[in-house]
């Protein structure tokens, strides 16, 4: 990839300066960060905290893979292994994936994208971060006090009556983290409804805003159901309330219903913002409006709405009624369609574009390939017949890692690389970051593809030891995990390096069209010197060209 085939337009480095006044330099000192109402600073706080939890979760994953190198449980005892995967799941789901894109990139970009000076409720935004931190501290306390081994699904009656680990503190930690995500979602919805700049109509919004809007609806309506479920679990453990206890006439399947009513939409909370990132990135680097803007926008909303109707597909083999199986299986098939629509629309955005292959784009390509596999294997599990054989095996592990890691994490990294120049005002080294993207992709496939075969062969999930004939594929998987680990460490290193030594990025290094790219990098605390008046559609590259010409003309 020679320089000719790239659109990065950095200012002349000898004269370029980071703007003196920006949101980072406005005030100094720890307190100015801890008491800030600025959505950009809160986004940075979130970015640091979720990266911290990502690496804790990642370290746990590393231990899991090491343990599975051999068929016996020899590295750790089985109960330690159970804690490892439980904590891995809890941390990755509630402390990384759910807040990942919305709370960092969404927090940073959404107000700028809609042309506002901040989110509608800055204090609530800060509160949301504090709730997250409080929940995180409880989680760390739980870990250091001995951990929890219920699995992230808290299956009753195991979690209520049969384990004696720290279920209560974990439950409360997740409860609090849930409210953190409710407040983020609530803030986004209000901002998108009420804070759009003049001229910014709904169909001029970037698709990133649409998908975050859809995810926010799920957060606001889904998370409280998880909250009450966790409250009931905590009450069952403390005062012996028996709503889920079969010995007292309760029904443990009711727990499954309530838990999955949140936790299935939760996967859309996790993936939808990622899809938004991909829309932005694919459009920018093919210099073309997203193919079928309205279709992509409405497919996000469709996923959010249908997302509420499919939860019981997690319970097909648990003895729910046949009729429910039919309905939920059918609706699951329907919810798969909008995802397919999105994939094809992104692909056709490339058609007749002018494509370059910067790091965010490479991650986006990775997303499109891996998410296609992840989505299709979801259909295997949504069809009630094949679900019987494949559920609760490594097939399902591979499936959701393809969607969550191959999809969401790729999108998150794509987004971080895409908006990094805007957040910090500096570029990272291009070649090494491209290498990191490729390493991640290879490592990912090596880690998780063998797990599809393992699952089809019948290897159950959450096993500390397994029959020896599964070893070879597990060895591949563990080998892949180490490659993947390198792929994730690299960005931390060069992104940190770039904070001081990176090239000055200028306002709009990618020549992107979003409003956030039309202001200085890093932006002012109030984002825009004056509220912009929007007179063009989203992804209008011709408008951008005209803007540049005007600038040249006025400067000349």
């Amino acid at each position, binding site marked *: 990839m020679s320089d*000719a*085939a790239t659109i990065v337009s950095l200012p002349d480095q000898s004269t370029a300066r980071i703007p003196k006044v920006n949101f980072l330099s406005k005030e100094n000192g720890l307190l100015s960060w801890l008491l800030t109402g600025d959505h950009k600073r809160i986004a940075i706080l979130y970015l640091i905290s979720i990266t911290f939890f990502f690496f804790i979760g990642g370290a746990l994953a590393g231990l899991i893979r090491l343990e599975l190198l051999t068929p016996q449980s020899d590295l750790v005892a*089985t109960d330690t292994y*159970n804690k490892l995967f439980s904590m891995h799941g809890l941390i990755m789901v509630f402390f990384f994936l759910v807040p990942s894109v919305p709370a960092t990139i969404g927090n940073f970009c959404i107000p700028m994208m809609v042309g506002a000076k901040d989110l509608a409720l800055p204090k609530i935004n800060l509160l949301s971060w504090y709730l997250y931190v409080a929940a995180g501290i409880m989680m760390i306390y739980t870990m250091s006090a001995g951990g929890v081994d219920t*699995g992230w699904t808290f*299956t009753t*009656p*195991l979690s209520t009556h*049969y384990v004696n680990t720290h279920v209560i503190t974990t439950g409360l930690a997740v409860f609090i983290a849930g409210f953190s995500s409710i407040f983020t979602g609530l803030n986004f919805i209000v901002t998108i409804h009420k804070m759009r700049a003049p001229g910014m109509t709904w169909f001029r919004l970037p698709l990133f805003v649409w998908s975050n809007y859809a995810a926010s609806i799920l957060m606001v309506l889904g998370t409280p159901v998880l909250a009450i479920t966790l409250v009931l679990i905590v009450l069952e453990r403390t005062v012996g309330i028996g709503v889920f206890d*079969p*010995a007292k006439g309760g029904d443990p399947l009711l727990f499954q219903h309530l838990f999955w009513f949140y936790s299935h939409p939760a996967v859309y909370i996790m993936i939808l913002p990622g899809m938004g990132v991909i829309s932005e990135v694919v459009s920018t680097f*093919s*210099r073309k*409006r997203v*193919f*079928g*803007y309205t279709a992509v926008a409405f497919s996000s909303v469709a996923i959010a709405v249908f997302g509420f109707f499919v939860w019981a597909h997690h319970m097909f*083999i*648990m*003895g729910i009624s046949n009729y429910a199986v039919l309905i939920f*299986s059918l609706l699951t*098939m329907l919810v*798969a*369609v909008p995802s*397919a*629509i999105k994939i094809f629309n992104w*692909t*056709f955005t*490339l058609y*007749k*574009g*002018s*494509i*370059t292959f910067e790091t965010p784009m490479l991650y986006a*390509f990775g997303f*499109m*390939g891996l998410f*296609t596999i992840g989505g*299709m294997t979801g*259909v*295997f599990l*949504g*069809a*009630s*017949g*094949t*679900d*019987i*054989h494949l*559920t*609760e095996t490594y097939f399902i592990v591979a499936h959701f890692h393809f969607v969550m890691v191959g999809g969401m994490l790729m999108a998150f990294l794509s987004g971080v690389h895409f908006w990094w120049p805007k957040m910090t005002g500096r570029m990272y080294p291009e070649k090494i970051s491209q290498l990191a993207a490729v390493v991640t992709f290879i490592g990912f496939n090596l880690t998780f593809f063998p797990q599809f075969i393992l699952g*089809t*062969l*019948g290897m*159950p999930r959450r096993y500390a030891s*397994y029959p020896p*004939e599964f*070893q*070879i594929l597990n060895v591949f998987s563990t080998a892949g995990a180490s490659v993947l680990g390198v792929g994730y460490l690299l960005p931390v290193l060069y992104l940190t390096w770039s904070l001081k030594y990176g090239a000055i990025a200028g306002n709009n290094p990618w020549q992107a069209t979003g409003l956030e790219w039309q202001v200085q990098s890093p932006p002012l605390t109030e984002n825009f010197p004056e509220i912009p008046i929007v007179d063009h559609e989203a992804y209008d*590259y011709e408008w951008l060209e005209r803007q540049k010409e005007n600038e040249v003309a006025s400067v000349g």
Partner: protein
Amino acid sequence: MSHISPVIWQFLVKWMTNFALFPPEASKIAPQMDALYFFMVLVSLVGLTIVILLITSFSILYSKKRHPVAVQIEGSTLLEATWTIIPLGLFLVMFVWGALLYFRIYTPPANAMNIYVVGKQWMWKAEHPGGQHEINALHVPTGRPIQLTIISQDVFHSFSIPAFRVKREAIPGRYTSVWFEATTPGTYHLFCTQYCGTDHSHMIGEVVVLTPEGYKKWLEGSTSGASLAQNGERLFASLSCTACHNTRPDARGPSLANVYGSKLTLSNGQQVTADDAYLREAILNPSQHITQGYAPIMPTYQGQISEEGVIDLVEYIKNLDSDYRVQQTTASTTLLPEGEGKTTQTPATQGAVKQ
């Protein structure tokens, strides 16, 4: 293992000899499941290939070098419709196909032989009708539909036999069932696939598929002396069930002869079929299962009988095909016929008997 090369060599040999993409097909349903599975794999591969081909060719054709100025295209309703309708159609095919398979797997045929499975932390206990007990193992004959009636004593477990492509959750307090017909003799894996606590990964066992002769031999070799129904009979007597469930005209409870499989009318007007799950519930939560015309006087046996005991009772009641047997119950020692091919379709005359 100080040398690395023999390890790798061993691995390669192992891999080459054991490599498989799917488990052995050892039941009648397995090839049907695999047909759908491979159809889905095919569709996925085609879809993935299309996406990858499109991305690659567009990336080459429209890279900035070759195609410096992008052509702005709004979209295309025709294309949108294409990639909405084609996936939708394929998904609907998979839905219908999958649902058919689902109902086949979870609808046991009437002539299936019933084996009870009780899951507990962390072992599987299987009980054959003849009273043979096994732990973490299941012996079954080929060529005969076998229904598993599964329950858990404590937490959720899941009974999974990958080679048969069947799996069913074991739930505390409720019977679930699944059936299969084994086709190929051999030894296969039996897993608990629902996470159930510390030794979840040790809750595994073997499914041994035998020829019908081999199974007969195995049954004879591992008999514990009394069939489930006989154990149930003993329990029935010792819990004084006969005090009410007898055939005397002034009996306080309905006669249980031929009750299994019949349609009952309950005191609240509800119509139910007396299946295994119903019988279990009626023993443990009797007041919700009072046959019409009887007073709700039966005490609950919740906490007094183990799950195995309930199974014995259920099996006993299932095999009660005449009032005569009930009258003999207290003194009976004779073996009941093995539960095969029983016909209990005749509706019982319960309820109407007593006014």
